């Protein structure tokens, strides 16, 4: 098993009066894919949004407890959130490219983070990012066309390329395939398999089959609590917890 990259300890999240996460203790291993599953509203998206402090933008949201990346507390008020988000990229459910060219979609991040000062450096970043996202061959002759003109699956890979372009360590994926057809989904899953060699990946998914296919570790959330976490194979063949079993077999009341 790989080393622990991200560690949450007694993590609690509140949206105003409502508590969304209860004492979540979860270790995520480096260069592995961890899948988070559970019914809607169970807290899995809230959890991954804690890893890059996306919850900071919600006024009523309060976070207590710890999240460490490489042993460094990220809930520290003095931590530079911009550089945290450079290290922890995110891909959302619906592909959301900027209304800019394919090239600009990728070069935007490196530019604002001060990477790629010359045109040729930027060209290299754009090409490498698109190659890593398995999109280069499909778009290399039309980099100046709008990103929004690509198909859904291509747009999602563009968003992954955009996340990769700033050379992050962690990629968070919040249901990245739920808006895609089976072929586009297969391409993203293939890509995840490749990306895990370089990045630590956390994926939220409603597809049990996808969790089995892409992840090495799976965590099951219910009503804000982490009910069970373990090797993916174990969770889907023989989970320890009855609630986990009821959820993955479709017996939830």
């Amino acid at each position, binding site marked *: 098993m790989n080393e622990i990259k991200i560690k949450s300890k007694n993590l609690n999240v509140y949206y105003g009066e409502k508590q969304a996460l209860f004492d979540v203790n979860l270790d995520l291993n480096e260069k592995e894919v961890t899948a988070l599953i559970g019914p809607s509203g169970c807290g899995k998206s809230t959890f991954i949004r804690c890893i890059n402090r996306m919850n900071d933008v919600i006024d009523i949201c309060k976070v207590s407890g710890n999240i460490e990346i490489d042993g460094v507390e990220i809930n520290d008020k003095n931590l530079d959130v911009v550089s945290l988000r450079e290290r922890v990229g995110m891909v959302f459910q619906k592909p959301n490219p900027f209304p800019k060219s394919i090239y600009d979609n990728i070069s935007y991040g490196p530019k604002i983070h001060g990477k790629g000062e010359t045109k040729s450096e930027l060209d290299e970043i754009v090409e490498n990012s698109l190659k890593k996202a398995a999109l280069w061959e499909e778009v290399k002759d039309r980099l100046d066309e709008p990103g929004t003109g690509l198909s859904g699956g291509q747009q999602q890979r563009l968003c992954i390329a955009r996340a990769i372009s700033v050379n992050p360590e962690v990629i968070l994926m919040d249901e990245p395939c739920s808006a895609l057809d089976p072929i586009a989904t297969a391409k993203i899953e293939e890509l995840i398999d490749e990306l895990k060699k370089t990045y630590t990946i956390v994926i939220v998914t409603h597809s*049990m089959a996808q969790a089995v296919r892409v992840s090495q570790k799976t965590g099951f959330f219910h009503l804000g609590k982490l009910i069970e976490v373990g090797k993916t194979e174990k969770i*889907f*063949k*023989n*989970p320890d917890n009855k609630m986990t079993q*009821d959820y*993955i*077999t*479709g*017996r939830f009341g």
Partner: protein
Amino acid sequence: MSNEHTVKSYEEELRYLIDSVIKMGSLTESQLVDSMDAVIKVDKDSIDKIIKSDDEINKFRSKIDTQIMTLLVKRAPMAIDLRETISSLKISQDLERIGDLSKSNAKKVKPLPLDLPEELLGNLKRLGELVIKQLNDVLDSYVNKNYDKAKEVWEKDEQVDDLTYIAMESVIDFLSKDKKNLDFSTHLIFATKNLERAGDHITNIAESICFLIKGEYLKGSRPKGKVIQQ
């Protein structure tokens, strides 16, 4: 199984699969009882009926295969449902093989003389009764999802091995008295061996049931009797 599935038809499909395995098991048990009876009583009239019942068992096997393929494609079963599905596949394979062995034993009745001495059949009869009891117990443990009972069957196969050895010895003793007995003695030796092999399939079923219930295979090697060690 615990709670019911949210999708009722999924629940029904799984229930239907389990029922099919239970029915196939009960048919296999009847066939084994009938074939043992035919051997012991040298009842040549029942041979055709037993051979025919094997067709029924084979049809069940095909039906269960189809049900399993449909379940896998439609439902992509997970956890206990996955184990239930895989176990059904394995158990039905073993039942089918037991059916084949019963049929094979029924066929061996044809060349047997009607006046077989009691002492020759006594041990074979005891072996047959034990194998039938083993099958009955393992099917019970499947119906009631009883791990301990399945494990008990698995362990008890040692007795089947020992009795096989004893039954073989008595046939060989009989054969050594008069070489004229060679032809039908050979059939009895094969019939004895078939029962021992049926016992092995029963232990496979017991293993599948233990895996189904606990999600892990029985650890260690099964206690083995004399015949296996030879």
